[in-house]
């Protein structure tokens, strides 16, 4: 059912495999850096004599590699693949996509070198030194050309939910990056406005860029793998517009109590609450994934669950009464992990597990490694988010009590931070397993070779209609 292979898949194999390879490589790099950063939270002296490996730089490196390395590459690969398949033709402008991919990843590497040598900008989600931002703008545009041509040149003029999310993501990133480049670096806004612009960028990068990239994959893979029309599909369009119109307005949610006009955090709160509608529609549309036994849908259903959880957590912590307790604790980090790892990455994992056999024409090298990755990724993310939440609880109680010393708070949070490091190690193991399976599959060393057109391999069993 899901394994229907078309000649177009192999025709567009090159750029897609290149994007995926870079993405998964950065995922492993980021997981390794994540362990160092997490370790330094409970052993502050660890590697502190090397400037390159101090906490501030390592955590910025980890975030940059994850967002601009892993999520961007993998998300773009799946978006191009979905747009190409829905267009009914081989991907066009492939040389643009390849050139863009090479340039994009060269600039990610340059950004990492820049951050390591102390050029990080200090803004959340935007550790990128200003000198790579223009290159990233143009290389993203080059990759997007292939996707936009596939969209505008589609044979059937109808559009599907995946189209909307993919095209939105292709247009949004150059927009937000150019705005933030002008307003923070080329002609920097002064004072408080900087924090507002940086908050808007961080929020938009998630709500308008990374979330749509992963929802594009989810909206395509779920009906393909279950063989069912999405239930309540009529609400998909209002759900999409809800995300696009109000998603970026929540930029001020971290400015509660800050020196900004009161309406900025209040609008952020309203935006987060309205986004519950989007999460609700996504869960309603894609709920067939929850009852499926296909392994890619296991990943995606975890991702959808995390997406809803992240929307609920965002709308709770955006209110002032709650924000007073969660601000400046690890709750923020936990929320970020729920969104970026729990939601976006899990959906992209599922999408890649679905897409790669079709792109390569071969089954995954090892079905066991797929299951191993599922177990490691799910347990790792639950452990990570759980321990960060417990640490946040300890911190929040201590920080609000003027009689508690700061060092005491650290001592109490330490066991949970140790657990977070353990979780990071589990995630690194999972990512390495994923990389190994990907490399073995892509290099064609697969012993279990069978053309995907003959039917799905055993791990990708789809339920009959």
């Amino acid at each position, binding site marked *: 059912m899901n394994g229907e292979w078309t000649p177009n898949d192999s025709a567009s194999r090159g750029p897609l495999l290149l994007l995926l390879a870079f993405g998964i490589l950065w995922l492993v790099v980021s997981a390794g850096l994540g362990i160092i950063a997490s370790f330094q939270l409970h052993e502050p002296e660890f590697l502190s004599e090397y400037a390159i490996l101090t906490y501030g730089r390592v955590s910025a490196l980890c975030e940059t590699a994850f967002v601009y390395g892993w999520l961007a590459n993998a998300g773009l690969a799946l978006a191009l693949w979905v747009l190409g398949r829905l267009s009914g033709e081989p991907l066009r402008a492939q040389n643009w996509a390849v050139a863009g991919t090479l340039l994009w990843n060269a600039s990610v590497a340059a950004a990492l070198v820049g951050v390591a040598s102390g050029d990080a900008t200090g803004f959340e989600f935007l550790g990128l030194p200003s000198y790579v931002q223009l290159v990233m703008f143009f290389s993203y545009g080059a990759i997007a050309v292939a996707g936009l041509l596939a969209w505008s040149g589609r044979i059937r003029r109808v559009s599907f*939910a995946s189209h909307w999310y993919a095209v939105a993501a292709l247009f949004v990133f150059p927009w937000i990056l150019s705005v933030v480049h002008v307003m923070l670096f080329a002609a920097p806004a002064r004072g408080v406005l900087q924090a507002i612009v940086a908050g808007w960028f961080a929020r938009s990068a998630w709500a308008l860029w990374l979330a749509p990239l992963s929802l594009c994959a989810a909206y395509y893979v779920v009906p393909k793998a279950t*063989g069912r*029309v999405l*239930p309540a*599909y009529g609400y998909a369009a209002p759900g999409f517009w809800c995300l696009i119109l109000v998603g970026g307005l929540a930029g001020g949610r971290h400015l509660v109590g800050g020196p900004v006009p009161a309406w900025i955090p209040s*609008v952020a709160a309203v935006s987060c609450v309205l986004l519950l509608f989007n999460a609700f*529609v996504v869960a309603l549309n894609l709920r067939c994934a929850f009852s499926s036994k296909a392994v890619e849908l296991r990943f995606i259903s975890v991702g959808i669950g995390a997406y809803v959880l992240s929307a609920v957590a965002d709308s709770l912590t955006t209110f002032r009464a709650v924000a007073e307790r969660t601000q400046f604790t690890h709750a923020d980090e936990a929320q970020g992990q729920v969104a970026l790892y729990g939601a976006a990455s899990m959906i992209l994992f599922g999408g890649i597990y679905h897409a790669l056999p079709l792109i390569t024409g071969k089954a995954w090298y090892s079905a066991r490694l797929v299951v191993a990755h599922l177990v490691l990724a799910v347990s790792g993310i639950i452990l990570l988010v759980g321990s960060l939440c417990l640490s946040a609880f300890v911190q929040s109680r201590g920080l609000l009590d003027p009689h508690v010393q700061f060092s005491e708070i650290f001592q109490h949070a330490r066991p949970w931070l140790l657990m977070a490091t353990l979780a990071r190690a589990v995630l690194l193991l999972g990512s390495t397993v994923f990389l190994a399976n990907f490399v073995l599959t892509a290099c064609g060393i697969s012993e279990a070779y069978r053309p995907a057109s003959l039917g799905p391999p055993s791990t990708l069993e789809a339920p009959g209609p």
Partner: protein
Amino acid sequence: MNGDPQRDPVPDQAVAADERLLEAHERALRGRGDRGDRHRPLAIGASLIALALFSGVYLERYTGHFSPLIFDENAKPLKGELVFKIDPVVLGQRYYGAECVACHRSQGEGSPGIYPPLAGSEWVNGPPGRVIRIVVYGLRGKVRVEGNDFSASTMPVYGRILNSGHNWSDRKIAAVLTYIRQEWGNKADPISEDDVAAVRKAVGNRDAMSEDELELVK
């Protein structure tokens, strides 16, 4: 969650092929092909309306009507001109602490033989015209306060007049005078900005006052 074929729509044809996927969902959008769909559109529409209502109420209540000057989410923008009411005693205390305290001391006791006291002084508690003149124009020569003679020092010129060392505004002088006339047991009437301005206008620019000139002022 699904599984029950009665509740979830099953397409006529599988959506395995991409054209079928597009077709089936296009049909679903147009309200056909969603056989067995039991979702209540009203419930979903109502949830959206509820969220929109909440947003409207929240924005009305907690945004300060989008004023760029409101930083407290519970505040509302003020209508009309903003009027600040300042307690002259508090203001005067601040200026006294910055300047006068150096000679007249923190309790207004002065220094015996050098700087006259303010606490209980007949000059401070006397006619407003006298103290206003002392501060605006300064005082030179001998002065008798509470039965003691002081002649070792000079009261500097504070008023906004020609060759003034301090150039204090009338409001500042009125605040300081009000403060010293109501502090340390003094119980004289407050002095307003207009009182100071009137004296300054009547007398004009001149050099420091002497005790004899001041005693003519009633």
